[in-house]
């Protein structure tokens, strides 16, 4: 067989140490290991690593793990559309939110600055609509006032007639 190290196939030695090779492939490799000190050293080292990792057991899981999880699941009430919209932003740390907020502010400022005054149409003065009946009523009022003035003058000129 081709030397795994020379053929850049060192994963074969890793697989051998892990006991993952088929029997035939393992025997072929073992024959090679007998005559290749470099591969033999690597395989022995890898076997030691595998054994050392085997000894590393993870601690026991807290008995209330599931209960805690289901409590959190229950608090996941049916989300309203706005809560679903907000959710991606909610756990976002400040350093991610700040650039977004700054970008939004910049966009707002630029949009205000780009609003050209020339775009504002001058407001045309509204044409006054004059109604004939209003004019007639006003003239009538004026005439009534004149008559009232005349009457008051007459009253002041002859105070004793009352």
């Amino acid at each position, binding site marked *: 067989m081709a030397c795994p190290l020379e053929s850049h196939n*060192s*994963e074969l030695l*890793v*697989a051998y140490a*892990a006991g*993952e*090779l*088929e029997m035939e492939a393992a025997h072929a490799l073992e024959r090679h290991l007998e005559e290749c000190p470099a591969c033999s050293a*690597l395989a*022995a*080292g*890898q*076997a*030691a*690593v*595998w*054994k*050392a*990792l085997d*000894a*590393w*057991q*993870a*601690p*026991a*899981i*807290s008995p209330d*793990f*599931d209960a*805690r*999880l289901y409590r*959190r*699941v229950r608090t*996941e009430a049916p989300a309203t559309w706005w809560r679903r919209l907000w959710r991606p932003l909610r756990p976002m740390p400040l350093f991610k939110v700040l650039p977004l907020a700054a970008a939004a502010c910049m966009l707002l400022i630029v949009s205000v600055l780009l609003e050209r005054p020339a775009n504002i149409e001058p407001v045309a003065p509204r044409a006054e609509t004059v109604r004939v009946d209003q004019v007639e009523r006003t003239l009538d009022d004026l005439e009534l006032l004149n008559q009232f003035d005349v009457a008051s003058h007459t009253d002041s000129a002859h105070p004793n007639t009352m």
Partner: protein
Amino acid sequence: MTRMGDAAVALDYDVELMLRVKDGDSASFALLLEKHRGPVIHFLYRMVQEQPVAEELAQEVFLRVYRSRASYEPTAKFTTWLFRIATHLALNWLRDARSERGQERLDDGPVDHPSHQISDRQASVEQQMVHKVKLEEVREAVAGLPDKQRAAVLMHKYEEMDYGQIARVLACSESAVKSLLFRAYETLRARLAHMG
């Protein structure tokens, strides 16, 4: 190699369970939790090396699975998806912890080394001490690996994932995984070969 490759997604029973969760079957979620709770927490523990943090991250993993039920599409093996979430959370936590602690190494501080890690309770005190020192050496060697190499080694060693699945979890090519594992095992051999 005898490692099981990615089975067709259609044959993945976990995918079927997840599709039932999507249809509102909470019992299927309980089954998925029962089956994957241990591997996920243990993987996260070996990644972050703090049990309370590992459990908290695992809660987030399963919560995300539950939250995503409505939009779930079986495009990959369920475990690939599950460990992608777990790895993502672990790598983020490690990055944040590093930036919080500056250059302080994660393994400098006190960590939990429960006595139950010593499998042989009948061993003498001296043997227990030797065993504890060896475990500490292993733990430190793994903690010393770059984050992605560590994730690749843990998935390869403890979850028995093949290169293809690890590549899909880490969102990289198989050759990149081979390279990650080659360098990782090279480092571990340099540190742990004397323990053989």
